[in-house]
């Protein structure tokens, strides 16, 4: 069995499962945020449930629009705070205490290898970076889990992505995942599990791996995951968290294996308005930008802030450009302060804001006006994603975003790399 199949077998108390089977699994962790959470709670009550199945298995994390930018948003948080208190949910991360949900689940060791993590957010697959089977669901599904602790799954077939070679900066895991999505396509992994492996992946930190698994959903995948290894063990050791590790069998059956050579991967960019509209940065160099965004559940981590700062340090961003920086969590924010990154970013002209999803989905802290163009480290460039419907989004790595902010136009990061 593949890693996904083993996790699903264990969670459904079966000795084995195979692709296509329907299994009902015990859920190890359910995450709600302030946008999809209230609807889940309303449906939970409508279903006639009173008490969540296990309050210690529920995490409530405010991240989409924090601090709240309007009354409606503030009401959503008030509603969720009251639910958290009523249900005795201890894993609750309010404004200024946590950050982006997908970051928190991994950073705090809440999402564990071999576990089933479900979140009322499509990028829940990010937690696959530590070998969890992590999937996004809607609010009604989340409500049913709140009440029963269970969910049905169709066992997915597994696509293996092998990345050989070594990733050399300023190329990053973002360039790799964009290359992968460009080849596989926005629906090329529909309903499947995508397992990332290979020399390049095993050398990556957990934070860097999270960029890969985060974007699995952008090729339609049910989840993306990476087999736990020494890097994973050290991550949980440092958190004093005990883990149980499952791995794919040597003779596991994969639907297909796709190989990528990191030596051949150039800085990549997804042009408007589809995530699989992937090309080399050099093909769109010179395209004028109005805003650059460094952050999100895809690329708001220390690795990302460091490489961007290395490019921006001692330079000023283009006078026409706004550079927004949202570290993915308060812990990252603090570490970036301690490492002196925030001062350097501010000196370069960046507006450093608090951890939130806001700019990525055009909710707050950096919405685009008509016809504006943004280069972003986030994960979606759909029409109107970051603001007005005529605004445009290019998706790229933190290095490419930093270089482009300096030049005022889309720029290959190697021009600023020495």
């Amino acid at each position, binding site marked *: 069995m593949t890693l996904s199949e083993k996790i699903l077998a264990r969670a459904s108390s079966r000795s084995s499962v195979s692709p296509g089977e*329907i299994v*009902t699994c015990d859920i190890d962790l359910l995450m709600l945020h302030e*946008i*999809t959470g*209230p*609807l889940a709670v*309303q*449906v939970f009550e*409508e*279903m*006639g449930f009173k008490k969540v199945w296990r309050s210690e298995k529920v995490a409530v994390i405010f991240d*989409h*629009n924090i601090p709240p930018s*309007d009354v*409606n*948003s503030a*009401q*959503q948080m008030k*509603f969720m705070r009251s639910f958290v208190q009523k249900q005795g949910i201890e894993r609750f991360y309010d404004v200024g205490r946590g950050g982006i949900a997908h970051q928190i689940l991994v950073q705090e060791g809440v999402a564990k290898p071999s576990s089933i993590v479900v979140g*009322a*957010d*499509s990028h*829940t697959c990010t937690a696959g970076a530590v070998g969890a089977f992590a999937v*996004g*669901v*809607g*609010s*009604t*599904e989340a*409500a*049913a889990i709140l*009440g*029963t602790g*269970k969910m*049905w799954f*169709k066992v997915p077939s597994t696509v293996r992505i092998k990345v050989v070679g070594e990733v050399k900066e300023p190329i990053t895991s973002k360039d790799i995942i964009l290359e992968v999505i460009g080849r596989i396509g*926005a*629906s090329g992994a*529909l*309903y499947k599990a995508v397992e990332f492996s290979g020399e390049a992946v095993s050398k990556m930190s957990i934070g860097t791996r999270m960029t890969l698994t985060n974007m699995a959903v952008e090729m*339609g995948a*049910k989840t993306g995951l990476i087999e736990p290894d020494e890097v994973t063990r050290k991550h949980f050791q440092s958190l004093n968290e005990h883990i149980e590790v499952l791995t794919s069998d040597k003779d596991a059956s994969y639907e297909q294996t796709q190989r990528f050579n990191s030596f051949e991967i150039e800085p990549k960019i997804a042009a408007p308005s*589809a995530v699989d509209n992937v090309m080399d940065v050099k093909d769109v160099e010179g395209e004028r930008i109005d805003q650059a965004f460094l952050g999100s559940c895809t690329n708001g981590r220390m690795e990302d802030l460091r490489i961007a700062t290395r490019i921006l340090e001692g330079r000023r961003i283009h006078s026409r450009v706004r550079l927004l920086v949202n570290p993915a969590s308060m812990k990252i924010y603090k570490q970036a302060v301690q490492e002196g990154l925030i001062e350097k970013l501010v000196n370069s002209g960046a507006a450093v804001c608090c951890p939130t999803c806001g700019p990525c*989905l*055009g*909710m707050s802290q950096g*919405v685009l006006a008509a016809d504006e163009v943004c280069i972003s480290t986030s994960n*979606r460039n*759909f*029409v*109107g*994603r970051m603001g007005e*419907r005529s605004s445009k989004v290019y998706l790229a790595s933190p290095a490419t975003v930093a270089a482009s902010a300096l030049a005022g136009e889309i720029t290959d990061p190697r021009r600023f790399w020495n």
Partner: protein
Amino acid sequence: MNAIVGTALKLGDDIDTDAIIPARYLTSMDTSSLTEHVMENFDPTFKMRLRENRIIVAGRNFGCGSSREHAPLVLKAAGVQAIVAENFARIFFRNSINIGLFAVEAPNASSSFNEGDGVRIDIDHLEVRNLTRGICISIKEFSEPVLSILKAGGLVRYLKAKGEW
């Protein structure tokens, strides 16, 4: 189960949930109030088209992107009777079934229908018909528990009746 009969509103491939309902409106806890914004990023004439034709017929990967259940909810509240697509993004598919909105996978759906063509979806006989052009597309059987959830009218009713999974 009765067949669903209506006329086709044609959409393309990769219709994403930001197109269906932009995130900036999701701070409202009253989802029925969102219908005025349905598909406004994608096609400002959508609401007008929906007055004429209420079965969406689309291509690949319908509903990709965010997990927001507001997307199928707002389509349903705006009057969409059912969605026929070549395939669906998985979260959107589950969300639709869970709220009792028919999401039906039919191969070649896009090329088999023009806007306004008559559509008949028959779950019992596993077929989608173009009543205008006389085309019949066979569809795959729904697996359980999908069929039971659909027949119950959504997950709330299914769980209320059954008490558990």
